[in-house]
């Protein structure tokens, strides 16, 4: 094979041919620094505008070369998933593999085209660098190794959730979302980079990174245990949580955030109910404290507080005015979003730690708050926003004008009502979507066709409703007419409701994003219908407090004034939930924990002073 034969003994003259090289110019490299190749893995460059301090670079760094540093003055926003931390690099450890660049969720990190850094022993601290966009030595060498789409190590796409098709779901109240199977949950959980932005954003600070990790490791019971550490409304939140965690998720900066809510749901559905009860009961006090707590309202806030207090050994009684516990999660949220049996499971877990829930008891009528005060060591009121706001436009007092919450309540209770043939809903929030989609289902069942129109002041981009809700409502045949300012209900000569008159809203917010609607009268529309449903907002009915207590309590802009822990100005009374924090399940859960801790502490003090 070789073209030099092994036996060829070579020549003494051949090497002399290389003397020709004496005639060639030598290779000369200038000593001036030059930029390396376009792909070079030089020193770190970090775009602080993009970086959110998620520390994923630190986690992937196999040489332990990255330190996170908090820098005062940088923006911090847990809700948006932004920390005032930035990575600093130890060039005594870095090996320039560039994995930090490839995994960076925001794409803020890159490496420069600069080759050299050197120093004397005394200047060793110059090896520890806080990179920004100016480059290692403040000189522009340009970006080298940077994020490219095909080399991205972050999986930006979410595992698709199987859902009922519109035609499958419109005629019934079956749950739309199928939930993840084992494989999907594992893959979805594996996308998480464990930055913990979700934990910071969550009102009740759920241990989301930890339970996602546990799901990925196949330790589903451990995931449930971690979930129960912060949230006894686990089934409910696994389905209808407003999931601020996902808004904060680092992966969501460029891609689809981890489906944290669906993972929670997966874990809860995957573990048998009886086992969940055992897990939830772990750590319950073995002896009774002898203290009694009364809680008014069996919604997420009240029951979360009840769960915590019962686990601490207190005797907790929850009074619920309606026929079943669950609060707005049961009476406000339709079954296709949150099946009642899931609420029942959450409540069964809460009951199983010893919480006594008494339904159909109306405080102020059946028992007064004063009586509760006299027979308990502490009282918590945790009311939901059960009352619907009215538009009070002309003729809105007509008998065919309803409040959405009242109808949703009837639907849950199974109470009959005259189903509209043609309904117009006012409002662009989730409640509006809930009632529209519920009515659409019933219309499909009873009349065979859907005729529901949703009108709202806002343009569709600014609806308060979840974008998924809007999308699904449209799929189900609901008509959405945005930018409609209600001006009055139209009544026929015979006194029948025949439509809703609206004006076109030119803009709803001014340049400072303040509410300042501008109407165009010429855009007047009559939306023909036989029923108008107001779904614009809700409030809590605080009349159960009674006049005297209302007068003696401190208030803060329409809401009960409470301290940071949820205690009112009356030392025996605490308040929590939507009535003080606004409508949100997970915020109510957070409230419940906070107020339970405060009640527990207050009762401990009572014990000592006794």
């Amino acid at each position, binding site marked *: 094979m*070789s073209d030099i034969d*092994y036996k060829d003994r070579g020549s003494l003259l051949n090497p002399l041919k290389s003397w020709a090289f004496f005639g060639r110019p030598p290779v000369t490299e200038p000593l001036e620094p030059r930029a390396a*190749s376009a792909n*070079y893995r030089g020193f770190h460059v970090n775009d602080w505008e993009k970086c959110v301090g998620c520390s994923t670079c630190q986690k*992937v760094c196999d040489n332990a070369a990255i330190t996170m540093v908090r820098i005062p003055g940088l923006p911090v926003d847990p809700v948006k998933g932004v920390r005032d931390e930035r990575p600093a690099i130890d060039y005594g450890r870095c090996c320039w593999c*560039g994995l930090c660049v490839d995994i960076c969720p925001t794409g803020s990190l890159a490496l420069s085209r600069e080759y050299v850094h050197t120093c004397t022993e005394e200047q060793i601290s110059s090896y520890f660098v806080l990179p920004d966009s100016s480059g290692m030595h403040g000189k522009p060498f340009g970006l*080298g190794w940077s994020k490219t789409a095909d*080399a991205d190590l972050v999986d930006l796409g979410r595992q698709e959730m199987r859902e009922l098709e519109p035609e499958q779901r419109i005629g019934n109240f079956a749950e739309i979302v199928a939930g993840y199977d084992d494989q999907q949950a594992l893959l979805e959980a594996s*996308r*998480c980079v464990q930055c913990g932005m979700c934990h910071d954003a969550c009102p009740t600070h759920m241990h989301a990174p930890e339970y996602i990790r546990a799901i990925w490791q196949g330790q589903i019971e451990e995931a449930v245990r971690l979930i129960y550490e912060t949230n006894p409304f686990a089934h409910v939140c696994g389905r209808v949580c407003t999931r601020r965690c996902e808004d904060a998720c680092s992966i969501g900066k460029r891609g689809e955030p981890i489906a944290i809510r669906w993972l929670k749901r997966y874990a809860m559905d995957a573990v048998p109910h009886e086992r969940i009860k055992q897990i939830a009961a772990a750590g319950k006090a073995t002896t009774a404290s002898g203290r009694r707590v009364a809680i008014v309202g069996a919604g997420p806030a009240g029951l979360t507080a009840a769960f915590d207090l019962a686990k601490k050994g207190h005797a907790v009684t929850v009074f619920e005015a309606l026929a079943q516990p669950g609060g707005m999660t049961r009476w406000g949220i339709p079954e296709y979003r949150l099946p009642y049996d899931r609420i029942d499971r959450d409540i069964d877990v809460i009951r199983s730690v010893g919480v006594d829930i008494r339904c159909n008891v109306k405080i102020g009528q059946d028992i007064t708050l004063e009586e509760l005060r006299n027979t308990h060591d502490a009282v918590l009121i945790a009311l939901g926003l059960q009352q619907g706001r009215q538009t009070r436009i002309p003729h809105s007092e007509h008998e065919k004008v309803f409040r959405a919450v009242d109808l949703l309540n009837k639907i849950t209770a199974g109470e009959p009502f005259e189903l509209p043939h043609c309904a117009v809903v006012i409002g662009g929030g989730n409640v509006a979507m809930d009632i529209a989609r519920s009515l659409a289902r019933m219309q499909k069942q009873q009349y065979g066709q859907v005729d529901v129109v949703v009108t709202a002041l806002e343009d569709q981009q600014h609806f308060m409703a979840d974008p998924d809700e809007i999308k699904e409502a449209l799929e189900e045949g609901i008509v959405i007419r945005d930018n409609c300012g209600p001006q009055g209900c139209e009544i026929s000569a015979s006194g029948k409701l025949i439509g809703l008159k609206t004006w076109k809203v030119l803009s709803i917010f001014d340049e400072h994003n303040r509410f300042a609607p501008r109407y165009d009268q010429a855009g007047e529309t009559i939306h023909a219908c036989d029923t108008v449903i107001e779904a614009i907002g809700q409030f809590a009915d605080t009349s159960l407090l009674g006049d005297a207590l209302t007068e003696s309590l401190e208030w803060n802009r329409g809401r009960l004034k409470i301290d940071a822990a949820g205690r009112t100005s009356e030392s025996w009374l605490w308040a929590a939930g939507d009535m003080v924090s606004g409508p949100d399940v997970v915020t109510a859960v957070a409230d419940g924990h906070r107020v339970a801790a405060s009640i527990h502490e207050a009762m401990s003090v009572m014990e000592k002073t006794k």
Partner: protein
Amino acid sequence: MRPENYQSVSQPPSNEFELFYGPNHPGIEGNYALKVRVHGDEVTSARADGGYLHRGFEKLMEGRLWIQNIALVPRICVPDPVPMEVCYSLAVEELGGIEVPLRAQWIRVMQLELSRIAAHLFFFGGHAATTGMYTPMFWGITDRDLILDLFEELSGGRVYHIYNIPGGVRRDLPPGYLERVSKTLDYLESRLPDYDNLLFTNKVFVHRATGIGAMTQEQALEWGVTGPNLRATGLAFDVRRDDPYLVYDQLDFDIPVEAAGDAWARSLVRRSELKESLRILRQVVAKLPHIGGAIRAPIPNPLAWNLPAGDVYTRVESSKGELAYYVVSNGGDKPYRVHVRGPSAMHAVQVLEHLATGARIEDVAQIMFSLDACPPEVDR
């Protein structure tokens, strides 16, 4: 008369010495020592001595995520790092059932052959230097630098490319890259006559290398010799052809052999192999533009990637011989065990000890280098 209790005390002869080749010595590509006993200028025994690297790659790998290890493996052979990256990646891919896109496979072949050329150029220089000729060393290092330029452009790193990743490669080719590869190939081809004149047909070198560190094919097989060192004893075995991986079965190349099994034969085999690598690269450069598609199969988030439990033994032909990775997963996010079988593990220990014993002291360095051993493959 001797007393009854007289015992003769055996004193070493005064003309016998123990010498250290290394741990820093141009005879070997790294920190490694050969302890030789010499009687006059004849070596009476030789003992290889490792342990100067203080790394423990195999243990380190057990503590790092599957992906993190890509930054570690190229360091196991500095002169020829690509086979390390590819062999490790192949193992992870086989464990994970990952299909590597065709384009990535061709890009890997390109790197492997570029790396082989760089390693062989390094070898020419080193081998020449151990016979006292330094110009080929400067030439070898300088021409190797052109390949490092290509690697820098491709991977962002000159020596530690960290470019292969389980699933494929980390970046696509830069625009116009293949033309620049072609130009470098043209240049290297034009340089071959220069190397021949200075080294391979240089009477001094030929005489100096002939008959040095010779072994028969039987000995080679007995001692586990592989790669060019084995082919220099006449056995035409090459993992690329006989246990093919990537797309080597679609490439046309020959397997050069020599029969003599000495340092000169080993040098000639590598010289021919360099030409074969140039030939392979010409084919790759012609083919790659017609192979589209992804450069990497989708892999999960590196921070949460469990590989199914199992074990795998992947082999590639490095410039030094048979390189293999035995990788065991217990279903976790890190390797449970990685065993690196570097060709030098044989060449630098038992083979070297055998060949050095009985050799003359001035030939020991040449024997060491002619085996082209890489100490970190031994001292993992």
